[in-house]
C-alpha cells in the first residue's frame, strides 16, 4: 500500500503547488461544463416553465418523454452527436469533432432534459394558491409567471446546480466527442479514466480529489438550497 500512500501525498503536493497540467485540466473541465450549463439553463428553464404551465392535453406525455430522456446514456449522446459532426457527418465541414465545442454540445443535450424536468418539478411544487392569489390581485399572465418564478427560485437554482454537477462528472461525452487531447479537451474524468495506469497515477489521484471536492461541494450547496426551498 505504500505506493498509494506516497501517491496520495504526491497528489496533494500537486494540488498545493498548482501544477500546470492539473490546472489546465481543471480549467478545461470547468469552462466546458459552465458553458454547457449556461446554455442548457437558458433553454431548459423556460421550457420547463412552459410545460408546467401549459394546459394542453399532451402535457403528461411530454413530461414522460422528458423524464425518459433523463436516462439517455452519455455514450448514446456521444455517438449521436458524433454522427452529425464527424468528418463524414452533415456538420463535418465545421470541424467540430474533438473540440471543446463538441463537448459543450453533447453535455448540453445531456442536461437540458434534466434542467427542464427539475424546473417542471420546481414550478409544480409551488402552491397553486400563489397563482390564484396573483391573479385575484390583478396580475396578468406575465406578472403571474414572475410570481411563480420568484417562489420557485431556490428549486430552480438547485436544478441548475444539479445540471452542472452532472456534466463535470460525466465521462462518456467528453471522451467520445473531446477525445482526451492534452491541454485542449482533456477533462478531469477522461484524464482519470485513461491516464492513471499509463504512469500519471499521481495526477489521477489529484484530479480525483479535486473532482470529488467540487462535486461534493456542489451537492452540499444543492442540498442547502433544496432545504431552503422546502421550508
Amino acid at each position, binding site marked *: 500500500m505504500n505506493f498509494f500512500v506516497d501517491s496520495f501525498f504526491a497528489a496533494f503536493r500537486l494540488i498545493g503547488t498548482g501544477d500546470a497540467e492539473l490546472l489546465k485540466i481543471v480549467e478545461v473541465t470547468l469552462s466546458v461544463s459552465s458553458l454547457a450549463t449556461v446554455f442548457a439553463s437558458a433553454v431548459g428553464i423556460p421550457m420547463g416553465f412552459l410545460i408546467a404551465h401549459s394546459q394542453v392535453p399532451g402535457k403528461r406525455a411530454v413530461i414522460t418523454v422528458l423524464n425518459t430522456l433523463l436516462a439517455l446514456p452519455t455514450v448514446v449522446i456521444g455517438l449521436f452527436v458524433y454522427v452529425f459532426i464527424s468528418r463524414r457527418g452533415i456538420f463535418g465541414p465545421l470541424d467540430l469533432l474533438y473540440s471543446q465545442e463538441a463537448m459543450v454540445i453533447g453535455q448540453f443535450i445531456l442536461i437540458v432534459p434534466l434542467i427542464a424536468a427539475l424546473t417542471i418539478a420546481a414550478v409544480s411544487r409551488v*402552491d397553486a*394558491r*400563489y397563482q390564484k392569489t396573483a391573479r*385575484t390581485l*390583478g396580475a396578468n399572465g406575465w406578472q403571474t409567471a414572475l410570481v411563480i418564478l420568484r417562489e420557485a427560485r431556490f428549486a430552480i437554482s438547485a436544478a441548475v446546480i444539479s445540471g452542472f454537477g452532472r456534466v463535470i462528472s460525466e465521462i462518456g461525452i467528453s471522451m467520445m466527442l473531446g477525445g482526451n487531447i492534452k491541454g485542449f479537451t482533456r477533462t478531469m474524468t477522461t484524464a482519470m479514466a485513461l491516464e492513471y495506469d499509463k504512469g500519471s497515477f499521481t495526477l489521477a489521484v489529484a484530479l480525483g480529489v479535486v473532482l470529488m471536492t467540487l462535486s461534493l461541494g456542489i451537492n452540499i450547496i444543492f442540498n442547502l438550497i433544496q432545504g431552503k426551498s422546502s421550508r
Partner: protein
Amino acid sequence: MSLYQLQHLQQRFAKKTVLDIDELTIEQGCIHALLGPNGAGKTTLLNILAFLESPVCGELAFQGKRVDYAKGNILSLRRQVVLVDQHPIMFSTTVRANIEFGLKIRKIDGATRNRVVDEVLETVGLARYKNARADALSGGETQRLALARALALEPQVLLCDEPTASVDAENQAVITELLRTINREQATTIVFTTHDRLQAATLAQHTLVLENGQRVNTTYENSYACTFEPTSGDKDRYLLHGVVELYLSAENRKSGQGGRGRITLNPESIRLVTDLRESPPVCSQVQGRVVMMMEEGHTIRVVVDVGVLMVVLMLADDYRQQNPAIGQQVCVAVPDSACSWTTAC
C-alpha cells in the same frame, strides 16, 4: 341594485357537475353569506364570482353587463374583485411588499402606495409587522393581512372563503368586525362562505344555501337511517336510528313488507307544539327537549332533541305564539307530507 346576476350557470370538473345554479343575484353594497356543507360548491362559486374560473355554461352578468371571457376584458373585471382564500398564501417577501403587489400592478405611484400600505395595516391592526416577513405570521394574522392586501386595492367586491374558520376566537371577532366596517364605510359588496349559521345570520343581509352545487332554501339535516314495518292499521311504524318511533300513512311506500332506508323530514313542514295537552294529534308526534334556538333570516331555527336531533324552522309569528324555551319539553308534529323516504339499496 344587483351587482352580479347568474342564470342557469353550470360548472363541471372531469364531467362531474359541481355547480348548477338556476338563478342568483348578488346585491351591490350588501353582505352575502354562502352557507353549505363541504363540497357543496361554495368555493367554485366564489372562483366564478372572482372571474378566476369561467363556467362551462350559463350566463353571468356583472354590473348589468354580460361577462365576456375574452382575455383583455376579463383582466379588467378581475381587477374590481378580490378573493381572499380560506388559507391565504403570502408571497415570500415582506408584509409591505405583499400589500404593494396589487398596487404596483395597477401602476400606483410610490407615495400613494406608502400611504395605502400604512392605512390598511392600521385598519387590520398589523402596523407593527410592516417590514416583517409575510410568511412568518400566525394563522389569524395571515388572514388579517390577506384582508389588508385585498383592501389596499379598494375592490368593488370582496369575496372571502371561510374567513373565520381557521382562526381563534379573538381573531374571529376582529375579522367579523372588519368585514362589517369595510361594508359600512366603503360600501364594498361582500360575499363570504361559512359553516356557521349564526355568523351568517348576524353578519349578512342575505344568506344563500348551497347543497350539491344547487341553491336550496335551507340545508336539510333531518335525515335519518330508519327501518319500517307495516302495522295492522293503515299506518306504518318507522323507527329512526333505532330509537325514535313515527307512524306514517302507508301510502308513502309500495311494498307490503318491512324494510330499511332513510327518511328525511322537511324542517319547514314539521311543526313545534309547546302545549302538550293540545287537541288530539292529527298526525304523528314525537316528544323531546328544545336544545337550541337561533334566528335564521325571517325564520327561527329550533333544534329539538327527540332521541335524535330534529330541526324545526318556525315562522316568527308561530314562534312568538308558542314561545318555546331552552330545556322545555315539546312535541314535534310530523305530517305525512313532510317526510320523504328512500329505500336502502
